[in-house]
């Protein structure tokens, strides 16, 4: 499986798209497939402080309930409210409309601790 080249990936199966100090985060297609049909997402509050690799939300599928782990540290500036009524976006478009939150990052160097698309593909193969 291949993954978008412009993203960085965590071993916890989250992705991050960094644009300046703003980072958009979500879960990968691999995670969505493994979870199966996602039926509920608990989003963080706008203004919440996230810590890299710490839990910031919950995703529930027909199979399991899993914590969401933030790939970066920072402050939540926006959440994808559509997921409240359309959690299926996480399955149908995990890298696009299924984004979870936007974060004002505090440490750009953290991206170095994440995988690139090839590295993530190896991890999940």
């Amino acid at each position: 499986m291949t993954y978008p080249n412009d993203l960085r990936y965590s071993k916890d199966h989250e992705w991050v798209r960094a644009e300046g100090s703003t980072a958009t985060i979500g879960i990968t297609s691999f995670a969505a497939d493994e979870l199966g049909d996602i039926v509920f997402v608990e989003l963080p509050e706008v203004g919440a402080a996230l810590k890299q690799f710490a839990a910031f939300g919950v995703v529930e599928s027909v199979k399991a309930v899993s914590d969401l782990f933030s790939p970066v540290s920072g402050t939540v500036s926006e959440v994808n409210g559509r997921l409240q009524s359309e959690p299926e976006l996480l399955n149908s478009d995990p890298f696009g409309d299924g984004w979870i939150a936007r974060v004002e990052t505090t440490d750009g160097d953290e991206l170095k601790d994440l995988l690139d698309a090839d590295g993530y593909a190896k991890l999940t193969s």
Partner: protein
Amino acid sequence: MSVTERPAPPSGAPSDGDASGRGAAFSSPVGGEQLQVVEPLLFASSRTGRRDVRFPSLSEAARKAAESQPEVPKHARRTATARLPEVSELDLLRHFNRLSHLNHAIDLGFYPLGSCTMKYNPKVNEWAARLPGLSESHPLDPAELSQGSLELQWLLAELLREISGMAAVSLQPAAGAQGELSGLLMTRAYHRSRGEGEQRTKVLVPDSSHGTNAATASMVGYQTVTIRSNERGGIDLGALREALGPDTAALMITNPSTLGIFEDQIDQVVAAVHQVGAIAYMDGANLNAILGRFRAGDAGFDVMHFNLHKTFSTPHGGGGPGAGPVGVGERLAPFLPEPLPILVEGTDDEVRRNAWAGRNTPGARFALEEEGTRPQSIGKVRAFTGNFGMHLRAYTYIRSNGDAGLREVSDDAVLAANYLRVRLTDAYDLPYDRICKHEVVFSGRRQKRQHGVTTLDIAKAILDYRIHPPTIYFPLIVEEALMIEPTETESLETLDRFVDVMHEIADRAATDPSALKAAPTTTPVGRLDEAAAARRPDLRHDFGAAPAGSSARQEAGA
């Protein structure tokens, strides 16, 4: 609207099945979605004024007595009549009988649902529970009229004490999860009593434990810390020691674990927990594997709960009522829920000896502890002394098996699981390839990778063979998990048939994967849209609309 066509059953499915139309599914558009209705709601057959029971009119004496009672306050009275279905007793009976026929049950077929211990519940339990002297007793009866019930509860607590090696047992908790909650409430009370309530904030939970363990810890206000398993499926001692500290309130460990594996370093685990002053909690959900072979009390555990509806054959019911007694060591005994049934006249030894010999003890007298007897008690967790009907059944089960019988229960449960483990390893991956206890966890990853057939597809296909599927996708640490718990009550022939079915499904996964994706095809309803059910549940009955299924039923019946 037409009756949904169902595909033909697989070759191996029994032909005596019930594709006879009992489960004819038809579709009814409700709320914009296609809702399958196999048995209409009772409201569909409701007719104004129709009655199940006609009450006799009140006698003069009763009316007078009622008049002297205080009136229900105005604000609490209904202003409109409750819209209950109005049906005859016969219609009611048929409705629930038809519903029960749509279901699978242990009394109908094999039910290897891992972690749930779906053993046969002997009917002698039901005989005992229906004895009028017990079934017609009331918890508010005075102690002098309740000696038998009190004695039975006292004796059951004694039996559970002996089985577990714990110092004291409360029967109150109504389910395993409530037993856990009681255990952690006692843990918190214990730490508070020592001035360490603030300091101890964390509960350690292995990643192979029951999901309820973490939920219980959160309910009590603790932060949970997950401890990973090692490559053998046991707890990683290094990771455990690293996580333990002065902030640890307790370790909750399921033993045997949800991998069906006995924790063979249990002595080191308990010692490490005690070294930091924390409480060692054993989740007794998997007790069916170790009866007469291992006692939590002997291993030093401070608290454990029992699932009477698993190990001790009380019914799982429709989710209840369960019973989850909790046992504790000396340290936690003062904190047990109150009131406990106690022996107030007579000696423990004599009463026990007589009871096991089937004799009464002249002069023995029982009572419930008076409130405040143990000031450190966490108090009541359940009305009265818990689900007494379940206590009765469990007591009957334990007494009818006896010491040797209970040991044999576990030996046979373990033997059955290992038999399936060995016979299915050629067809399914076994992530932890070692002798298991009462359940065995396979992985369907081979079927998924090679043929695109998921564990969900396999589970659905099993339904077409009139077998309840194993637990799937749990424990979470096993990819595509298939968790099989045969229990001790199945014959070798039943186990062999299951082996044949699992082999046939593995073959079909390779040769005809699309057929498995369509399974089940012989059940009252086919593959349900679990995602839509969770995302957009439709739980309300619309009185304004035509009763769901009422018109369709006529068509289907025509």
